[in-house]
């Protein structure tokens, strides 16, 4: 295997696993940017992994007033799941129990795709049957009466089945401080790509659910089969999910560039990936190098 290093950082010749996902995009708005952020946060919640019937969710990017349907400040949000029923259940719960309670919040579909999931149509219980359904052009909205007036929510939300989730990169370095700094830079770089989220809290995770991750635990290094070299003392996992392969690839490329820019001098030794699962699509790590 040919050795490849950039700025002193070794790039392992491994495959990244990418799990096929169904994804939907929501646009969440509020009366002010602060309340919009609270609303989006309540809907995104903690959702680092779609494994086992739950979802990956996160904020994609903030939207200016002229980018949202109602002209108010907002954020775009992405949710990913393995199966449609999981995505539908998560959506209903997160909007019905979380977002609906946030003052002034409204929720719309962020994708015009043909495949639809129920959003407002699944929340009929909230308004006690007194909600008003309005069709505006091709879109249907529900005005659900609540304490501060109305909760405006689109009847259905667009979904795509081209999405990829559970894409994992491992950043390996000499110290936890160095790895944390590199991970933060990589998260900022990758999150700038529209259509990509990093669903782990803060974008980087110290808990990897992937098979064989124990080989990267620095405190278990004495055990057989450790994947760490003598000068490697910390690892963090970067988790990504995106609406299609091209945005995911773009985000991986930017993350790699950010980490290699810090380089060996900044305490980063290697970029690698955990073993890809059998049902995952395999992406070759080195192909994403900028």
């Amino acid at each position, binding site marked *: 295997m040919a050795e490849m290093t950039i700025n002193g950082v070794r790039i392992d010749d491994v495959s990244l696993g990418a799990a096929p996902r169904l994804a939907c995009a929501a646009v969440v708005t509020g009366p002010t940017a602060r309340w919009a952020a609270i609303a989006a946060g309540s809907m995104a919640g903690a959702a680092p992994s779609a494994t086992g019937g739950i979802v990956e969710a996160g904020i994609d990017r903030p939207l200016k007033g002229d980018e949202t349907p*109602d002209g*108010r400040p907002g954020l775009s949000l992405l949710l990913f799941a393995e199966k449609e029923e999981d995505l539908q259940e998560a959506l209903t719960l997160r909007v019905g129990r979380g977002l609906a309670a946030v003052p002034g919040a409204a929720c719309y579909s962020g994708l015009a795709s043909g495949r639809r999931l129920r959003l407002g149509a699944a929340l009929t219980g909230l308004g006690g049957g007194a909600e008003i359904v309005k*069709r505006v*052009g091709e879109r249907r909205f529900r005005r659900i009466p609540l304490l501060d007036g109305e909760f*405006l929510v689109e009847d259905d939300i667009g979904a795509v089945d081209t999405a990829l989730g559970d894409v994992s990169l491992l950043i390996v370095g000499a110290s936890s401080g160095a790895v944390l700094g590199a991970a933060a830079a990589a998260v900022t770089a990758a999150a700038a790509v529209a259509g990509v989220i990093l669903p782990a809290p803060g974008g980087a995770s110290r808990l990897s659910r992937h098979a064989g991750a124990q080989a990267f635990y620095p405190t278990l290094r004495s055990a057989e089969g450790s994947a760490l070299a003598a000068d490697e003392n910390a690892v963090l996992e970067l988790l990504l999910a995106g609406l299609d392969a091209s945005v995911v690839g773009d985000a991986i490329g930017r993350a790699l560039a950010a980490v290699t820019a810090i380089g060996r001098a900044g305490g980063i030794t290697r970029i690698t990936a955990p073993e890809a699962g059998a049902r995952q699509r395999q992406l070759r790590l080195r192909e994403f190098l900028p």
Partner: protein
Amino acid sequence: MTGLTFTLREAPPERLDLSPLTPARLAGLSCAKIERIAIGTTRLGVAVGDVFRLSGEDAADLVFAGGSTRFDRLGSGLDGGSIRLEGDAGGYLGLAMAGGTITVAGSLTGPYGGSAMTGGLIRVAGHAADATAAALPGAVAGMAGGTLIVGGRAGELVGDRMRGGVILVAGGAGRLCAARMLGGTIVAASLGPRAGQGMRRGTLIAGSADDIEPTFVFAGRYAQAFLPLLGNWVGGIAGEAFARLVPTSADRYRGDMADVGEGELLIGPPE
């Protein structure tokens, strides 16, 4: 490819039924065949060739150079393509249309324009006559979907028994606008007397109203996200002047309590 153009030779001798002249029915027909299509409504037996001179070839994009108050049922049942009328139209324009676009440079001079339509877009630069988008006698509902944009004023009973869709009127609407309304949205600069009389559901938005029916209940000041949402959409489809008709804050009245009472009147001066 230029649009198939019907140039009016002279004022029509009688009322014309132009319903056969839609893109779907003219597709693939030769000019000679089109000229023989009967459009008369009396025993005179008027055909297309007697009234119009044909030019152009694209049947998906019909143009009528010159209009008349005797042009009835133009674009009736339209389900795609476009019809451009460079003049006035008579009654029943776009009756029961399901898709496509009709543009009228003049006014709707007869009733029931857009009645029973379920989709598509009608743009009228001039005024709209009485009973535009209203239910035909005996029909359960009037306009049921799609969008109707009127650049001028609208007459009486606009949107009578309307069930869905959106009507935008830059000028004022006359008496009994949205009477017996079942659903949908009407936005007008002002409303004449008895607006929304007997309405069950639906939304009526205006800068001012001559009176509010006594069976409508004041329901507070309304400034929810729905208004800017609607305003944004209106701006996109009809332009800024129409978007300004949608206020961001309005007095809300629920009614008509003499019926189901799930409709609303939103009265607020334009921004």
